[in-house]
């Protein structure tokens, strides 16, 4: 399948980073389990996923930016523009899958008994999809350098968000008890649905941007 050929190409382009990142990602849960055993497993998994996605996708974008016209050659061959975009999303999922498998194996090996529950996996998936789903269309539209700059501003604004909200609306309290009362299965389905919707919107935007772009 052509989609997998393009993912293979991505891995080939960053093969040195892939090995280093894979080893580093395996070390993260081990390190956290030893230094902060009380930290919830979901947080160390979230950290692992965020770091893995960030390192690999940034390495890929930077390597591709060195040969910006190569994508034109791919699209002059029977690779479609849609496949090029879809391959980036598949690459994200494969990184996530690796993180999950590596985390689970490390947890089993360390014999901590703190395996991730399904809810934690879906929460981490939703968080990482949300960031990735915003980032990728921005990168397709504005390129790597501008996308990084836009994201730095966005991260800064988001980090200020909770402080501003709490100082402006100190009297407001949000009650999450209704959400907590929902059955476990419904919560999982809601997280999965939210992930799919965010991903669909993001991919539609990326496809539209990339299909209208001059290569």
């Amino acid at each position: 399948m052509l989609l997998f050929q393009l993912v293979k190409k991505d891995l080939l382009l960053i093969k040195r980073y892939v090995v280093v990142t894979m080893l580093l990602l395996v070390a993260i849960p081990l390190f956290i389990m030893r230094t902060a055993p009380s930290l919830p497993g979901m947080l160390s998994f979230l950290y692992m996923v965020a770091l893995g996605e960030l390192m690999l996708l940034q390495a890929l974008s930077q390597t591709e930016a060195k040969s910006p016209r190569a994508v034109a050659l791919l699209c002059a061959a029977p690779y479609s523009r849609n496949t090029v975009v879809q391959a980036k999303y598949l690459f994200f999922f494969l990184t996530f899958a690796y993180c999950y498998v590596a985390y689970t194996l490390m947890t089993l090996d360390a014999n901590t008994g703190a395996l991730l529950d399904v809810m934690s996996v879906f929460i981490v998936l939703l968080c990482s999809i949300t960031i990735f789903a915003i980032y990728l269309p921005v990168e397709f539209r504005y390129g790597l350098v501008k996308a990084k700059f836009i994201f730095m501003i966005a991260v800064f604004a988001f980090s200020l968000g909770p402080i501003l909200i709490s100082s402006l609306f100190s009297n407001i309290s949000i009650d999450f008890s209704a959400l907590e009362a929902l059955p476990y299965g419904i919560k999982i389905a809601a997280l999965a649905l939210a992930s799919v919707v965010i991903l669909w919107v993001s991919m539609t935007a990326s496809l539209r941007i990339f299909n209208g772009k001059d290569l």
Partner: protein
Amino acid sequence: MNNILEVEGLGKDYRDFSLSNVCFTLPEDCIAGFVGINGAGKTTTIRTILGLAKKSSGTVRMFGKDFSHNETEIKNRIGVVLDEGYFYDDLSMAQMKGILAPAYSNWNEKAYLGCMERFSLDPRQKIATLSRGMRMKFALTLALSHDAELLIMDEPTSGLDPFVRSQFLDIIADFMQQGGKGVLFSTHITSDLDKIADVLIMIHEGRIVLQQEKDWLLESHRLVKGDRKLLDEKTEPLLLNFEKTDFGFSGITNQPEAVHRSMPGVITEKPTIEDIMLGYIGGEK
């Protein structure tokens, strides 16, 4: 004879340049030289034909089929050589081939290996270390390794030394001998076209200035040289362009008989493609 490529009313708008109503056809078994000066619109036309730049108007048909509706099938049947190659510099040639080959349904590994050997290319060599000539040879190798029926090449010979250019032209000639093929070959090095082109398509400022058979063009045009006194309101319109010197004038005409009648004593010579190109797009007139 069937048309292998048909371009109709192609348009592409940029802020400071546009392609306007570009129309031409490439018949089967023909090598078309796509000529024009730098910035005339050759690369933009080729990129728009291939869908790499989005057209603002017009249609592109290859093998009788609309390109935008049959993209994958058509891309399997064409070989593309782009200026500078457009490769991933960090990869070796074998790795780059490994990326492109699976995309073609009719990849011919034997043809690939044959071409690599003919061009003395080492598949393990990193693309970043290749000279421009080697890059273009590798690009041509990839374009010829999936039994393409149409080759579209953008300035493949510019910057190459005469020996490599000659090798390149020989390969194209071999490709055409198989029959049922076509080549669209953009260049501003007109001497290459003297050797291999059947048809010339000339573009200037984003518009097609002419499309004619090369032999007909060379037969129907003449380089005219004579005394400046012969130039007047009646004779100047007979020349496409002319240049005045201290000793006389020289120009290009597509009406040699009328020139001989109206300007007795002028010397006429068979022009080169470059003379004709400059006649249509440059000069003093």
